[in-house]
């Protein structure tokens, strides 16, 4: 089988770097070009020092891009929708890792992103990029919009409960704790080391844009669900930990919840149920997932109420970005979904 030629647009950021790392060792892929306007002509390892000696690729300008089999877009918010026609001229297949095409409704986009979408006609043409929810559509898709990291961490544990109509759809409360790499590779006052180190900073108590994706993907009835989502940045580079509180319509025992998760995720290669009664790692913990494409899910039913606490964790740059995009790519091309994604993580770390 000849290799699939891909290019990465916007390859100097953290997501782009992670994607290049994965693609370089993918047996079915050849990276044709990687673009970065700020690194034109420089080796890729200038921006991503972990890739030294792994590749002699140099960054190109987006204006130098040639045709390829698939484009991965790792651009800042707004750039993909602005330049999408140029990209269509280069490749009929696109996986966009930005938020530009995640929502399928123009009005909702405007509500959450506070501006009009430049190409609303395309919103329904992109498949939302969580394979566990949209695998069948991905098999024939040419356009995929990779899901948000916090949204992925939240949607995966909640999905079986919402799909089976088991929860009060207005009461779900979600708190995510996130690492600094979610903020990208541009420094700011907030990321200055004396300010950021040791921080437990409530940066988005309400109104987080990933809420829109969660609502979109978990609304199965005639009315939209309501979720109550807050985000806190903590002293961690990679990782997301989501703690979601759901309220059951009818009582379920913990055994029933185990069965529910087995029903939905037993055959999923990247979802693991983590719930043990003893030991150090009783519930999901982001640090064990660094560099992996897993989403670990744990839970605990409150003995005194109908509340269930769901605990989920991912590496935001992997299952929350580059890893999940590569998983979608594998599905799109009919490859083994795990190709290039089998790293099991490190312990201790």
């Amino acid at each position: 089988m000849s290799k699939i030629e891909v290019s990465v647009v916007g390859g100097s950021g953290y997501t782009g770097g992670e994607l290049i790392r994965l693609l370089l060792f993918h047996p079915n892929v050849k990276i044709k070009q990687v673009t970065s306007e700020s690194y034109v002509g420089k080796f890729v390892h200038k921006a991503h020092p972990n890739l030294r000696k792994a590749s002699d690729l140099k960054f190109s300008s987006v204006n130098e891009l040639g045709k390829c089999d698939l484009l991965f877009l790792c651009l800042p918010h707004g750039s993909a929708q602005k330049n999408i026609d140029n990209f269509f001229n280069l490749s009929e297949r696109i996986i966009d890792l930005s938020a530009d095409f995640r929502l399928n409704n123009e009005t909702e986009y405007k509500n959450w992103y506070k501006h009009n979408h430049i190409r609303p006609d395309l919103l329904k043409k992109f498949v939302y990029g969580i394979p566990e929810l949209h695998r069948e559509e991905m098999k024939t898709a040419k356009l995929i919009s990779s899901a948000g990291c916090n949204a992925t961490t939240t949607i995966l544990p909640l999905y079986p409960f919402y799909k089976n109509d088991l929860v009060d759809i207005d009461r779900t409360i979600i708190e995510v704790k996130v690492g600094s790499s979610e903020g990208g590779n541009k420094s700011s006052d907030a990321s200055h080391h004396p300010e950021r180190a040791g921080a437990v900073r409530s940066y988005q108590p309400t109104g987080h844009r990933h809420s829109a994706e969660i609502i979109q993907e978990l609304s199965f009835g005639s009315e939209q669900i309501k979720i109550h989502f807050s985000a806190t940045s903590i002293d961690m580079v990679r990782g997301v930990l989501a703690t979601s509180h759901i309220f059951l319509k009818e009582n379920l025992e913990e055994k029933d919840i185990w069965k529910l998760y087995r029903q939905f995720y037993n055959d999923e290669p990247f979802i693991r149920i983590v719930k043990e009664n003893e030991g150090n790692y009783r519930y999901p913990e982001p640090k064990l997932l660094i560099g992996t494409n897993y989403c670990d899910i744990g839970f605990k039913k409150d003995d005194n109420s109908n509340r269930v606490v769901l605990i989920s964790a991912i590496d935001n740059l992997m299952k929350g970005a580059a890893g999940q995009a590569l998983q979608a790519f594998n599905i799109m091309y009919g490859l083994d979904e795990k190709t290039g994604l089998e790293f099991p993580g490190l312990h201790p770390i």
Partner: protein
Amino acid sequence: MAECPVCAADIQLPDDTVAGELIECPDCGTELEVTSVNPFKLAEAPSEEEDWGE
């Protein structure tokens, strides 16, 4: 075959399993005691409670 009393996982037990044997559930990690072999029955093995500052 026996069912884990904690997470309802189906657990395959070898034919030579004896009553009183301790096994670990592959799904939830709970240590289980084989309380009966015909049919196979499992119960949570007693363990020391850990105190996490509560």
